[in-house]
């Protein structure tokens, strides 16, 4: 997938602390231009925080994050704004503005950041909606369409400015398997047709193996392993094996061992 080996997103020893808890602990990874990079992990493992660090919503407490070679933590607000225009983000719950129609939502970045004429913007919106298979829904409000459609509109908005990178936060969560499959195909199509680098955060294993070129697993804020999809499938790492097979027993402790059931019952 990645013919050119240029690094587009790079994390160097990144850590983030929330209320004395190290949510991200010394993570370093490189994402190459054009590849689909999946970050997987259990709920609360820190993978969404990692995504928020990469998009500049959060600032790292330690380490540096480079996007297109620029250290985003050190940029001024205007410079960071320029970097943000080079990527799009698709949110877990789509995060469309309720008060705007589908068309207005998708045209928002275009209206704000370009000097294009309204007619041209309308055409671009139609093109983006066609890409996600929702042409004809321009005048609907987000509350009038289904969750899956909202996610696709969110995706159309994310690619409105023809970004280099699209970040996806749980793109298939809350969707039925068919719509989930459609979304996976869409992510794959977008990265192949538009040569977009995709960074996907998910815990949906089916989705991981469908779309990923490379996979990284995060557990308790630490990077467990990074590798190609094939390498991950056959990895001997017990964390990875437990996660991809969804086994309740293994090193990923679901129950807190220090609180025994007897203690809870007061025995």
């Amino acid at each position: 997938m990645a013919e050119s080996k240029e690094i587009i997103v790079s994390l160097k020893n990144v850590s983030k602390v929330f209320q004395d808890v190290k949510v991200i602990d010394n993570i370093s990874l490189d994402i190459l231009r054009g590849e689909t990079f999946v970050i997987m992990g259990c709920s609360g493992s820190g993978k969404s925080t990692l995504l928020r660090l990469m998009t500049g919503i959060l600032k790292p407490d330690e380490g540096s994050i480079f996007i297109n070679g620029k250290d985003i933590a050190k940029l001024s607000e205007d410079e960071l704004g320029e970097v943000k225009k080079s990527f799009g983000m698709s949110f877990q719950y789509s995060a469309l503005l309720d008060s705007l129609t589908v068309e207005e939502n998708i045209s928002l970045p275009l209206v704000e950041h370009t000097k294009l004429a309204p007619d041209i913007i309308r055409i671009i919106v139609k093109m983006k909606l066609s890409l996600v298979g929702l042409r004809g829904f321009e005048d609907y409000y987000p509350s009038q369409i289904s969750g899956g459609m909202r996610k696709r509109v969110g995706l159309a908005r994310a690619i409105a400015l023809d970004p280099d990178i699209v970040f996806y936060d749980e793109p298939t969560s809350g969707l039925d398997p068919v719509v989930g499959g459609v979304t996976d195909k869409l992510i794959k199509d977008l990265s192949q047709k538009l040569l977009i680098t995709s960074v996907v955060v998910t815990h949906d294993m089916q989705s991981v193996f469908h779309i990923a070129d490379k996979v990284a697993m995060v557990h308790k804020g630490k990077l467990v392993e990074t590798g190609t999809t094939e390498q991950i499938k056959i990895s001997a790492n017990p964390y990875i094996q437990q996660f991809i097979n969804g086994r309740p027993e293994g090193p990923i402790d679901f129950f807190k061992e220090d609180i025994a059931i007897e203690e809870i019952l007061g025995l």
Partner: protein
Amino acid sequence: MISKTGQIVIGLFKEAASVLNLLFDILYWIIIGPFKGKTARRQSIFHQMVFCGVNSSVIVFFVTLFTGIVLAMQSAYQLEKMGAVIYVASLVAVSLCRELSPVLTGLVVAGRIGSAFAAELGTMKVSEQIEALDTMAINPVRFLAVPRFLALLFMLPCLTILGNIAGILGGFIVGTGSLHINPDLYLQTTFKYLAIKDIYTGFTKSFVFAMIIALIGCHEGLNTKGGAEGVGRATTRSVVISFILIILADCVLTALFYFTKV
């Protein structure tokens, strides 16, 4: 006990600093923004002006109309004893324009619009919409707070004028209907004692109240934490804080106008 009081004081200072920070942010986008080619959306300002102003006019009209009626009756009750019923007209007009109309309009709008700002922005915050704006390199303060601030700054004084008129009308109804004052005489007395400074002191108050309502509503909304419960808390807080600050600001401004003989 002391440490708890200290914590509350520190919390208050932090909150005040955060509100002031938002005010500077808003002023930055209003004054510096246009030079950087980044202005608030005109469409959004008009939309908010309709929402804040036009849609609040009925409630403001009735609240001040009935206040005017009550004020006329209460003052007539005392003035009748001195045979000075005619002064009901000036008493109603001056007290409404200087004090009651701006304050009542401010309180009504704080309840109606300040809470709506907090609830709307709070819901946007908890449903990641504000974060989405941020990732699209659209400043949430410029996009959301500035139109609301400008709209209210323009519409609250307009609503106050409406309140003045409705209140005087209320007094007029009582004065001419029940106290049998000649309508011409009533209006003459109203305008004879109503100085232009009475109007603009009320106006100054409504400007300050508009800033308080918009700032607190937007601040609470943009700083909402948690889900639906957080939105509820932000809405309540916005109304409570706005009410307290409006009365406090009214007290300070009235003292200022009184001692400077304005």
